[in-house]
């Protein structure tokens, strides 16, 4: 059984090891983060997943204006469920980040150095992150109903024809994430796995 009520549990979780981060993030603030840190993000983040990444990538190559300012911005690899009446958004958890690896090095070069997703990244992305002071945050895959509760407001700002894959600006409050790969390239997925691996 869950201990205590939902509300108590949530408060308990928020209370320990809380590193509050305000967005836009500065490179200096990002540099102080360490792989494994639990953070709570507050401010505006932008959703973009497979199809939107292709569009951003094409826009950059064609020299077109980008739909939002990359500097200090945080991109969230997610495509939400439709919002119920009276709610800003439906369930919205992270999607697999690895599918964005093809596009990320160029986007990082252009300033989009802070990312939220889930799962492993390619070394080419990690190298670019180190070069540009980037951070890869992981949200908990599958905890999408809970994460929707951190979204105060949502609006489509680009590529509306992509439906769930359109770029949305989300205003989030205390959005929970773990620093999966920090700006030195230290990877918490590797650290965690090695720690609990039983070599027979």
């Amino acid at each position, binding site marked *: 059984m869950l201990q205590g009520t939902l509300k108590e549990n949530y408060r308990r979780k928020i209370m320990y090891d809380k590193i509050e981060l305000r967005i836009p993030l500065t490179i200096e603030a990002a540099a102080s983060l360490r792989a494994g840190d639990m953070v709570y993000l507050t401010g505006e983040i932008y959703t973009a997943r497979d199809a939107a990444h292709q569009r951003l990538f094409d826009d950059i190559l064609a020299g077109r204006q980008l739909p939002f300012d990359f500097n200090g911005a945080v991109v969230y690899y997610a495509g*939400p469920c439709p919002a119920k009446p009276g709610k800003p958004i439906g369930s919205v958890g992270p999607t697999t980040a690895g599918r964005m690896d093809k596009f990320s090095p160029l986007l990082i070069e252009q300033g989009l150095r802070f990312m939220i997703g889930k799962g492993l990244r390619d070394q080419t992305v990690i190298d670019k992150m180190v070069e540009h002071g980037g951070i890869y945050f992981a949200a908990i895959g599958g905890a999408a109903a809970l994460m929707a509760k951190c979204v105060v407001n949502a609006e489509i700002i680009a590529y509306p024809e992509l439906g769930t894959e359109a770029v949305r600006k989300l205003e989030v409050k205390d959005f929970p994430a773990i620093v999966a790969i920090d700006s030195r390239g230290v990877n918490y*997925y590797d650290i965690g796995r090695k720690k609990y691996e039983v070599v027979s």
Partner: protein
Amino acid sequence: MKTRVIKLFDVITLVEHLCIEANCVMTSDIKRCLEKQAKEDKSMLGRDILNTLLQNAEIAQTESSPMCQDTGMTVVFVRVGQDVIFDGGFIGDAINQGVRQGYEKGFLRKSVVSDPLKRINTNDNTPAVIHYDVVAGDELTITVAPKGFGSENKSQLKMLTPSQGLQGVKDFILDVISEAGANPCPPIIVGVGIGGTMERCAYLAKKALLREVGSINSDEQLASLEKDLLAQINQLGIGPAGFGGSTTAMAVHIITEATHIAGLPVAVNIGCHATRHAEGKL
């Protein structure tokens, strides 16, 4: 000949309901397993993540919101008694209509593109992947199993040769899970199909995901193989959400079937921490 008429309107209503239930309600077997592991996982962060996933399931059920934003491609298993006659059209159309209505009314995400290369969203999550099985009797049993692609993308199939034997099968399964790492949203359920032909083997692996977590395989040898593999998978260290821990998988479910003298097909289908499914009968 004795027959039974089932109205397709009832099939539509049932499928609609099952789509919403599968996406919003965690099955009790998985919930029990997560609750147990939330106390027992060796990693504190791992235990915390498992509690978060339980909390998420509770919110989803209370609010009738999907547990995960990836409400999947809708896989539907249909077991139809041979004495059933459908009234009101074609059964496949009725199932797709049920999916259409369920995804609309349940505020579920539409994640299906009509063509894998052109990639245009159908905007109603159809077509569903439908597996028909004709059985004896006059009942209709439908299981809706929405499949997210975080875990589907990490699934694999390999045509082993007979001489690779049991060891080859074990090595392949462990390799697939190890390579999948954090991506399929662990703790996972590992569905394994062994035997048949290539496509049959993949079907068996998918079907294996539906078995109750904690149940014991009726075949003694397979039961022991499942136990061994589960222990070995949980020694990989991947853990909840992939951040390390002793709970990488909740269960390994194996289904075997007759195969050819020259072949040993093995398919591994990975189910995420929620491995959603809901069943109904008419």
